[in-house]
């Protein structure tokens, strides 16, 4: 099979791609930040000794960890409006799907990280008069965060790529915009090649940054 590569037909739509890249970054930043912050909260609730708090948190985590994000996005877009009687935008559906999933994932990372700190560290804090909250904040969390950093940063990278799932409800992120170009110009091969390269160029420095971060925080032991 012979194919004549024609990237000019893609680059002619650079402004369309730029809108897509902005859509990707926008979705990524919001889902990532709110997903991690929410994960910390749910992770703490999950760690609670009170079953009325920890059990619902656990249920939440299991529901969202064990269903595909793609299915969640489609569900929020098509089924949720029927349930609540309110229109759900493409952005909102994608945001909900990815964020709720990221909360569930990072909640487990936070809980696991906190639990991985030896009981003796709690005792040492307590023995110099620290309250539960002070021990958590000053002794446990700083050590736990260091252990959580690798899974959390790799989740961040994963979330960036997950943003392409939003194209299923036609949210204008990078992949969706490339689809658009391909449907005008009949150049899907070039269009999707450009998408892959764009993601690679953005993610490569981001991944290097996470390595740097992990090395910096791992210094004391």
């Amino acid at each position, binding site marked *: 099979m012979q194919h004549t590569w024609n990237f000019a037909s893609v680059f002619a739509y650079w402004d369309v791609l730029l809108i897509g890249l902005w859509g990707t970054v926008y979705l990524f930043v919001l889902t990532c930040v709110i997903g991690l912050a929410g994960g910390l909260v749910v992770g703490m609730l999950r760690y609670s000794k009170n079953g009325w708090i920890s059990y619902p948190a656990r249920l939440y985590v299991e529901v969202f960890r064990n269903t595909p994000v793609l299915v969640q996005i489609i569900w929020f877009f098509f089924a949720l409006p029927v349930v609540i009687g309110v229109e759900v935008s493409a952005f909102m559906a994608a945001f909900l799907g990815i964020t709720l999933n990221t909360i569930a994932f990072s909640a487990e990372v936070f809980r696991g990280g906190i639990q991985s700190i030896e009981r003796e560290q709690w005792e040492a804090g307590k*023995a110099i008069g620290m309250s539960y909250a002070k021990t958590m904040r000053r002794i446990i969390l700083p050590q736990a965060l260091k252990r959580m950093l690798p899974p959390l940063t790799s989740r961040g990278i994963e979330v960036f790529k997950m943003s392409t799932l939003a194209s299923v409800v036609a949210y204008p992120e990078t992949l969706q915009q490339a689809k658009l170009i391909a449907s005008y110009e009949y150049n899907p091969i070039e269009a999707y090649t450009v998408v892959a390269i764009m993601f690679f160029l953005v993610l490569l420095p981001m991944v290097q940054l996470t390595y740097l971060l992990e090395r910096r925080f791992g210094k004391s032991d």
Partner: protein
Amino acid sequence: MTPAVEIRDLHKSFGDLHVLKGIDLDVQQGEAVVLLGSSGSGKSTLLRCINFMEEPNDGRIRINGDLIGAERGGKMVYRENELCKLRTRVGMVFQHFNLFPHMTVLENVMEGQVVVLGRSKAEARDKALAQLARVGLEEKAPEYPSRLSGGQKQRVAIARALAMDPEVMLFDEVTSALDPELVGEVLKTMRQLAEEGMTMVCVTHEIGFAYHVANKVCFLQDGQILEQGEPHKVLKTPETSRVRDFLDGHSLFKLPD
């Protein structure tokens, strides 16, 4: 004089397991008391009740005259911030040091002073350096704990507890996890503290330390104090065969005649 620690009819259970069965013990100010007893006799539990790492099920504990907790319907109830405050008055050193690995030696010794006592960073720093000098480790201040030997870690842990200006210090088998050649430096530090007049309660298997440093030795058996008294009496002429057998098991140490 008011005892530094006064324990009356102390009981502690873990579920169905009755561990402490009515302990009465006075520790006078400036006194060093050593708790002996075989494994599982309740030594750690007794020590941990004194600073309320474990809450007693029954009994009264007074620290320099202050009754800890409030009586309500014949039972003692304890408020969390009262216990936090108490733990600044009663320091504890653990078998496994439990230093904070994400902080330098200096930060370890400053932490409680700043975060709990509310001292300024500058004051805490001066106090920390003074306590580190006291245990002979001033020059290790900027190091992380992972760079220290076991004996040095334990001396830092002692400095961390001392920096809170405690009225009583509790030591729970603080040399048991150390290589034999490092035991001496820690015992020496403890001996020096005792000579400086620090009130101490020590669980240890170092009979020599008990003999030479303690003012009083208590032998725990099955959650009760079987014998107590001056070290040369309890250790050289024990009244019960149980204590005699225990001491024979520690034949490494030969008491001077």
